[in-house]
C-alpha cells in the first residue's frame, strides 16, 4: 500500500473520529430531544464519509456508493420516526425536555 493512501486514510479517520465525538457529545449534553436526533445524524454522516473513503482507497467505489445510498434512505426514515416520537411527546406534555424521559427506572 503506497504511503500516501495510508496518509489519506489516517487523515480521514481522524476527522471521522472528530465527527463521532461531536455527535456523541451533542446527544449526551443536550436537554432537547431534537438535538439528540441531530447528534445521531452527525454520527451517520461520519460513517458515510468513512465508507466513501474506504471505497476510494480500495477502488470499490461502486459497492460503497450503493451502501451509502441505502444507509441514507434508511436514516431518513429513522429521522422521521424520531421526529414523530418527539412530536407526540410534545402533544402529551407540551415539552420535549429529556428529563421527563426518566420515569421508567429500577
Amino acid at each position, binding site marked *: *500500500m503506497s504511503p*500516501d*493512501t*495510508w*496518509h*489519506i*486514510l*489516517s*487523515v480521514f*479517520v*481522524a*476527522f471521522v473520529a*472528530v*465527527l463521532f*465525538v*461531536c455527535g456523541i*457529545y*451533542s446527544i449526551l*449534553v443536550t*436537554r*432537547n430531544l*431534537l*438535538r439528540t436526533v*441531530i*447528534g445521531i*445524524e*452527525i454520527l451517520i*454522516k461520519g460513517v*458515510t464519509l468513512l465508507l*466513501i*473513503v*474506504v*471505497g*476510494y482507497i*480500495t*477502488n*470499490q*467505489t*461502486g*459497492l*460503497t*456508493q*450503493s451502501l*451509502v*445510498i*441505502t444507509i*441514507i*434512505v434508511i436514516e*431518513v*426514515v429513522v*429521522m*422521521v*420516526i424520531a*421526529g*414523530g416520537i*418527539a*412530536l407526540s411527546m*410534545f*402533544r402529551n406534555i407540551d415539552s*420535549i425536555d429529556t428529563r421527563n424521559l426518566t420515569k421508567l427506572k429500577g
Partner: protein
Amino acid sequence: MTINIILLIAMTIATLWTVMGRSLLKATLGLAVTSVVISVLMFRLDSPMAAVFELSVCAGLITIIFVSAISLVKPLTHKEAIVVSKDRMKRFRYLPLLVILFGVIAGFFGIPNDFKPIYVALANDVRTVLWSLRQFDMFGQIVIIIAGALGVVVLFREKEKR
C-alpha cells in the same frame, strides 16, 4: 490532497457550530452546511452518485423535516433559551479541546502503518452493483419506506377521543 484537508476542516467547523449553536434553528442550518461540505468531499473521492444523493436527501429533505418539526414544537421562550444556553455554555468550554485531542489521537493511532488494505482490480460501477448485486437491499429499502409511512400514520395522527 490539501484541498481535502481544507474541506475536512470546514466540515469540522460546521459540526462544531451545529453542536454549540444556541438556537435549534441554527443547529439544523449547521447540519445542512456540514452535509453540503461532505457531498463536495464525496465528489472529490470519485463517488458522484453518493454525493448527489447525500446533497439532495440529507441537505434537503432532512433539513426540511427538522425545520417543520421545530415549527410544530413550540420554541423555547427567549428567556428560557438564554438559561438553557448559559448552563450549556459552561459544559461547552471543554468541547473544542476534547475534539482536537480526540482527532489527534485517532489520526496518530488510528491506522497502524503496517496495515495494507486490498486493491480490487476490476471494480464494477455503481449501476451494476446497485441493481444486480444489491437487489435484496433495494427490497429492504422498499419495506423500510413502507414501515416509515405506517409509523408516520401511527405517530402523527391525532387520537380521535382527545
